């Protein structure tokens, strides 16, 4: 109650959306409007890129022209770098949506002969801002001034004046700075910029690079203090929030078939809930992929798009193997209902996988998704990372009402029901595949450990996979008795 009361006194802080995937989500709407944000990080972390994306999206999506004062890269180089990510600066410049001013200062070409100030910089900036009626400004990286001019006292005073000038002109600005030793920026820019500070971090762990973004400070607004992974790919930067806004996704009452009649029967006679997540775990050779393929097959048979992420086998191999058990996936591929996406788990870090998967889902808009197996990614990444990534992926799919099946390889005999990362708690339905033996013959067993929101039998059933297809038989209890008798 108290909290609610306090909140009503506070006027919401106006924000300027960056248009960068995920960043607006973790900042609660964007950067502080009319204020300056300090963006710091080590070399190669993507500061310039993030700042340029802020300008490009501003110009294209929000009708806010932007000025970039570039102190480090020559304009042509910057244009080329940004173009490699799909942004055409030249076109924006031509349309007067963007203005790039490359500020070059070479100390060995400059002689200092007495008092001076940075009026020249102010004049250039204000001239550029006026020329295109800019609302956004990027100074990248203003600290280069310290390398070019020798009087730090003058520079500090002038920078302070510069940031005040930006505030006075109601410009939403990003100032970039290189990480210093024990300080956020080499020359302590954080002393002057108090409204919003964001750190980008790029580190390499076991040969896999991970990028993290953290909001150190955001005056007057609640913000996540976590580190958020972000990726840079052909479409620019995406920040991956740990989870989407809350557990607010709709729960559908509609059902979709699992593709196996016997399994549908076990699940209240109807199958999975639409938009639910299903985990199929088991040791090697228990039929996890077969079950996943049946699920995909059923989705396609309903005329739905299905996206199949294969982390272990090539699409060809999966199609061939499934044909041997009477599942023909080929026609679905030809009719463009089934889309395979096969990548090596080691091809990129976790964030890369997650971002890639989200992008494909957005592009293909499937109704069903198969991830086969999640274990491959797990073995390549730390456990914490996997769980948070899977949480995000599951949330992402649920919000869009996409039914998803994840297979998970487990090892050993007494650990069948354990998943390495405790991912089962994220899942709505958990099916465990077990190995059994009958009269010296290996048989496959299937058990539903849990299935939220529906009654289900708890006993083991036998899964029969033959060239005629997949069947579930109810006989295993009887046979177990038979086995103990012999």
């Amino acid at each position, binding site marked *: 109650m108290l909290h609610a009361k306090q909140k009503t006194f506070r006027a919401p802080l106006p924000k300027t959306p960056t248009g960068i995937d995920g960043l607006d989500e973790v900042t609660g709407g964007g950067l502080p409007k009319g204020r300056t944000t300090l963006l710091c990080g080590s070399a190669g972390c993507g500061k310039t890129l993030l700042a340029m994306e802020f300008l490009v999206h501003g110009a294209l999506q929000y009708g806010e022209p932007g000025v970039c004062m570039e102190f480090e890269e020559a304009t042509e180089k910057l244009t080329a770098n940004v173009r490699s990510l799909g942004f055409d600066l030249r076109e924006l410049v031509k349309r007067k949506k963007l203005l790039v001013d490359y500020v070059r200062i070479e100390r060995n070409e400059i002689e200092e002969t007495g008092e001076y100030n940075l009026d*020249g910089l102010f004049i*250039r900036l204000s001239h550029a801002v006026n020329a295109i009626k800019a609302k956004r400004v990027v100074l990248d990286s203003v600290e280069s001034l310290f390398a070019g001019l020798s009087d730090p006292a003058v520079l500090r005073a002038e920078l302070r004046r510069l940031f005040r000038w930006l505030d006075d002109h109601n410009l939403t600005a990003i100032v970039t700075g290189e990480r210093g030793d024990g300080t956020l920026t080499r020359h302590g820019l954080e002393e002057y910029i108090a409204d919003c500070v964001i750190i980008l971090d790029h580190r390499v762990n076991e040969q896999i690079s991970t990028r993290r973004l953290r909001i150190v400070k955001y005056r007057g607004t609640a913000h996540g203090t976590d580190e958020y992974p972000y990726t840079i790919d052909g479409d620019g930067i995406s920040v991956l929030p740990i989870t989407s806004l809350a557990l607010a996704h709709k729960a559908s009452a509609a059902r979709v078939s699992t593709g196996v009649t016997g399994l549908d029967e076990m699940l209240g006679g109807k199958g999975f809930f639409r938009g639910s997540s299903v985990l199929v775990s088991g040791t090697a050779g228990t039929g996890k992929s077969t079950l996943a393929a049946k699920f995909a097959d059923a989705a396609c048979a309903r005329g739905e798009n299905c996206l199949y992420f294969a982390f272990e086998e090539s699409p060809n191999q999966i199609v061939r193997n499934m044909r041997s058990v009477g599942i023909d996936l080929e026609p679905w591929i030809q009719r463009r209902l089934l889309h395979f996406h096969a990548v090596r788990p080691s091809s990129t870090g976790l964030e890369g996988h997650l971002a890639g998967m989200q992008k494909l889902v957005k592009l293909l808009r499937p109704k069903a998704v198969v991830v086969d197996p999640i274990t491959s990614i797990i073995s390549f990444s730390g456990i914490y990372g996997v769980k948070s990534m899977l949480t995000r992926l599951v949330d992402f799919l649920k919000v869009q009402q996409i039914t998803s099946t994840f297979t998970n390889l487990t090892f050993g005999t007494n650990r069948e029901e354990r998943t390495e990362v405790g991912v089962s708690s994220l899942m709505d339905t958990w099916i465990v595949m077990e190995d059994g033996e009958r009269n010296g013959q290996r048989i496959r067993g299937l058990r539903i450990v849990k299935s939220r929101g529906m009654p289900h039998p708890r006993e083991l059933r036998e899964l029969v996979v033959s060239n005629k297809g997949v069947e579930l038989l109810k006989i295993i209890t009887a046979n177990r008795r038979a086995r103990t008798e012999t």
Partner: protein
Amino acid sequence: MKKGLAKKRRTTKSTGSSFWELRLYIAGQTPNSVAAIANLKKICEDQLRGKYRIEVIDLLKKPQLAKGDQIVAIPTLVRKLPPPVKSIVGNLSKTERVLVGLDIQRAR
């Protein structure tokens, strides 16, 4: 033209036959700007009589010109000739530094 001058300058460095083309950037009549103009005129008259030309550009009036000569600090004196182009920042009160910057120590 430029090239010719450069060559000439290299061979006749100490004879002082070069020509100094100078451009002083200011922003309004601030104390530093006023001082810079006065200092520059004095130095040129003392050292380069008849061999210089000064152009004063007020960026408040012509802001678009700041970009071309990469002006950041005010006042800035740009030595267009003789080459190479050099920037001299400040109100030009430190005469010794100005002479070094203009490369006219040895020219005398």
